[in-house]
Every structure is written in structure tokens, then in C-alpha cells.
């Protein structure tokens, strides 16, 4: 493998890690509040508000139903307006986050909804406000499930980042596309696959360990 290819692989890996890292943080910071909103405004939730829930739910569903490639293209003007470019790491962070936020929110919503109704009731009986219940009951009790769900979301994001790479975002996806698809360079292709597999395995392993550690139910 030439020095140039080697450098590109290093660069691509760093770009992919940056893309995933930044988008993960954004998805967590925005996806979790969205999940709390979705979970608590349903019927019987602590901030029960079925109409609001139905409205928010529809928006989430619309975004989730658009295939990532199309979403990315459709978002180009928005991405430019927000970060000034639709290329490179920053250009990829916007669509990756937009796609992951609702996906992660739906998974986290399920964990939040599964918190035993009796716990909420006990909290009410001890004089907790609704925000207390979210903060001290729902989030801690759902934490193992949320961590597991976040792991799934990040892995799905790696998948999407390769698609993003192919249309100008850079990173490992870009390399694989250019060397593997356009030049039939199998060696680069295989290296990229190995790197991606290793990345996914590491994230999954870490996520599983963390979820297990946080789960005090056993």
C-alpha cells in the first residue's frame, strides 16, 4: 500500500470518528429531551397532552421514514445555512444528526415508557413534582435501556456515515467508494471494511458493558 493511500486511510478514519463523535453528542443532547417529551406527553404520562404528542410524533415519523440518502440531499440548503458548507465532516454532521435524533428518541421513548407506573405513583405520593419524576425516576430507571438504545443509534450512524462519505462527506465511506468502487482496489476496500467492523464492535462492546453496569435490577 502506498504512503498516499496509507495517509488517506488515517485521515479517513479520523474524519469518520469526528463525524460520528460530533453527531453522537448532538443526537444525545437533542434526542433525549425529545424522547422525554414523547414519553411523558402520551396518555397517562406525567405531562399528558395527547394532541401535542400526536403532532410531535408525526414529525418524528416523517423524518424517520425518509431514506438517509434522500434526507441528506434534501437537507443540503439547510446544512449550508447552518454550517456554511455541505461538504466534509461538518457537512455530514447535520444530516447524520437530523437522521439519528428521531431514531434514538423513539428507542429511548420505549425505555422511558416501560418504567413501572407504580414507581411514578410512589414518587407522586412522596411529594415529587413532575420534573422531579422525570429527573429522579424516569431517566435513572430507563438508563440501561437508553444506553443500549444509544449504542444501536450510533452503530446505525456509522452505516449512514459511509453513505454520506460517498457523496462528499469524506471519511472511510469516501475512501471505499473511490478506491473500491471506482478503481476496484480490493486492498483498500478490505482495509476499510476491517476498520468499520472494528469500530462497530468496539462501540457495541462498550455500550453493552455500560448498560450492564448501569442495570441494578439483577
Amino acid at each position, binding site marked *: 500500500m502506498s504512503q498516499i493511500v496509507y495517509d488517506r486511510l488515517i485521515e479517513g478514519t479520523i474524519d469518520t470518528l469526528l463525524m460520528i463523535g460530533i453527531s453522537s453528542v448532538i443526537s444525545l443532547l437533542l434526542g433525549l429531551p425529545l424522547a422525554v417529551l414523547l414519553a411523558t406527553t402520551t396518555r397517562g404520562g406525567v405531562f399528558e397532552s395527547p394532541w401535542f404528542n400526536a403532532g410531535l410524533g408525526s414529525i418524528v415519523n416523517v423524518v424517520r421514514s425518509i431514506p438517509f440518502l434522500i434526507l441528506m440531499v434534501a437537507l443540503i440548503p439547510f446544512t449550508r445555512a447552518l454550517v456554511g458548507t455541505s461538504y466534509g465532516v461538518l457537512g455530514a454532521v447535520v444530516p447524520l444528526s437530523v437522521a439519528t435524533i428521531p431514531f434514538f428518541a423513539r428507542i429511548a421513548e420505549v425505555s422511558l415508557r416501560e418504567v*413501572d407506573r*407504580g*414507581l411514578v*405513583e*410512589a*414518587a*407522586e*405520593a*412522596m*411529594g*415529587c*413534582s413532575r420534573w*422531579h419524576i422525570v429527573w*429522579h*425516576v424516569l431517566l*435513572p*430507571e430507563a*438508563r440501561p435501556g437508553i444506553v443500549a438504545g444509544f449504542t444501536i443509534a450510533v452503530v446505525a450512524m456509522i452505516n449512514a456515515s459511509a453513505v454520506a462519505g460517498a457523496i462528499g462527506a469524506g471519511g472511510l465511506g469516501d475512501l471505499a467508494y473511490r478506491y473500491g468502487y471506482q478503481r476496484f482496489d480490493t486492498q483498500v476496500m478490505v482495509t476499510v471494511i476491517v476498520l468499520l467492523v472494528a469500530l462497530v464492535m468496539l462501540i457495541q462492546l462498550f455500550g453493552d458493558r455500560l448498560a450492564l453496569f*448501569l442495570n*441494578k*435490577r*439483577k
Partner: protein
Amino acid sequence: MSVFSEEKTHILVSGLVKRYPGAQAPAIAGVDLAIRRGEIFGIIGRSGAGKSSLLRTFNRLELPTEGSVQVAGQDVGSLTGASLMQLRRRIGMIFQHFNLLSAKTAFGNVALPLKVAGVGRDEIERRVTELLDLVGLADKRDAYPAQLSGGQKQRVGIARALVHRPEILLCDEATSALDPESTDAILTLLRDINSRLGLTIVLITHEMSVIHEICHRVVVLDQGRVVEEGEVWNIFGAPQHDVTRALLRTLQKTIPGDLREGLLDQPQASDDRLVLDLHYTGGQGRGPDLAGLVEALGSGVELLFGGIDRIQGHGQGHLLVAIERRGRSDADILARVQSLSDDVRKLGYVPDRI
């Protein structure tokens, strides 16, 4: 209302109706109750009778549809926001399935009510330690609920319920998920708390033995209505309503099979003995007077089966006795024992030797 003017009334329920949306029959269909300060008050009834619905209006987990609930003179239904939170801190509650937070240790669970009330860290440390001590779990402060037995979990629940030093403790089937030994221990703890801290305790149970064990007064609910109410010994000694009798059946010892099968409708031989069931309700200070029986009937009296229980100082129960007739008529024998128990029933006859 006259009861209310009494200093002693702690929780006053008037004309309470609770209707859930979509449900046909109301869960509570007009209940009036006065629970006294410092008593252990039991609520019994079949499943679905409305016990939980009633209890949950006391700390306004449920809003009354009609009527009112007053706690220490304060109308609970009108409270909102901060004043509702204040009320709930004066009323502790424990649950059948404990409802402990799995992600927090015993200490964390007991500390939570204080934390959300803005109590300082040192004060929390002091109070939680004191409460864990009280319930006998000082050594489990760092254990997670999953590492505790059922009885220990309920102790954490009790500590959590008491951490604000409430004046009322509500217990919804608090021992129903526990084995008999833990049940006894928890009941002892509750009785202890009641007498030491002077707490008013309202408890729901479907186990008659629990009422028998620690309650002072009891109300029997059926289909959202009060069917019977009063001192426990009174209700247990002389239940007036079918529902109460059905609930109490679980406590009664039934006549052993061999005796029941050996009972004859009519005497077959002249020395067959008459079997009577003497019932003692515990009223009028009348207990089973054995010497009196022998005096009234002569020496041919055999105690076949039965038992006397003591509830709140009143002895009550049943005695099955076989009486040698010696030529006397049944009516004559019945007349002789009539004044010795609260109720006498003729069950049949048994041979001389059984």
C-alpha cells in the same frame, strides 16, 4: 357533621364518589367515614371493591368525582401545586410491590423524598440513617433493591414513607407479596410505629389475619360502598353482612372431616350424644365458662373441637361439645346452655365413643 367537630377525627370522608372515565359503575359509590387520629384503621373487601380507589383519594393520587376528603380539616380535593406536595409529605404511603427505585440504593431511595423537598445534605444523611435504623436495615444502606428480600424491600418502603415524619401512613396491601414470617415482622413494625410515633395508619388488606393482628377498627367495602364498620372484635365476633362472613371464612377453622362425616341427623342409640356449637362473640365480657357448662349439664360434657381467639381483649370463637343426654330432651339441654354463650346451634348427634 357531628363527627367532624370531634377533635379526634383525622381523616373525614363525606359523600365520596369516584367514577373512572369509561367505567360503568363507580369505583366508590358514596362513602362516609371518619378515621381517628392515632388509630390503625383497616379497609377490607373483595378484589375490585374499591379499597385502593378509596385510599388513593386520601393523598389525592385520585381526585374525588363527588364529595370530599378532609385531612386534619383540610379539603384535599382543592389542593394544587405546592400545597398538594406539602400535603403528600404529611402522608406516607407503602405499596404491595414496594415500588422502590431499582437504580438507587436503600439509602438513595429513603433520601429521595428529602432531596426533592430541598433538605440539606447533612440533614438527609442524619434522617436517612435514623430511619434505616428504625426499620432495622442500618447494614443495608448501600444495597440495591434487587439485593434485598421482600421483607427488607418493604422496610425500605416504610423508611421512605416515614422520612418526612408524616402524621398518616397509608398501606395498600403492604404485606400481600410477603411470606408469613416477613408479614409478621412488618406488622410488628407497623404496630410499633403506630404506638411509638402516634401515627394514624390506614391499611388495605384482603388478609383477615392482618386486620385481626393489628387493626383497631375496620370497614368492609363492597362494590364501592361501606357494608359494615366498627371495632375489629365486634365485626369479627358478630359479622352482620354476607361479604364480611365470606371474608372471615378464611380465618375460621372448619369442622374436621371425620367429625363432620360422623355426625348423625337423628340419634340412633339412646346413649348417642348431642353435639352443640357454642359461639362466643366476645361481647358483654362473656367468655367460655367451662365450669358453668359442667354445672348446667352435669359431668357428661366432652369438648370435641374449637378454639377461642383474643382480639383487643375480647375472647371469641366456637366450641363444639358433645353432651350426654341422659334422658333429657334436646330443648331442655339447649335451654340450660342458652345463657352460657352468645349463640347455640345444634349440629347433630355422635355415638357414645368417637
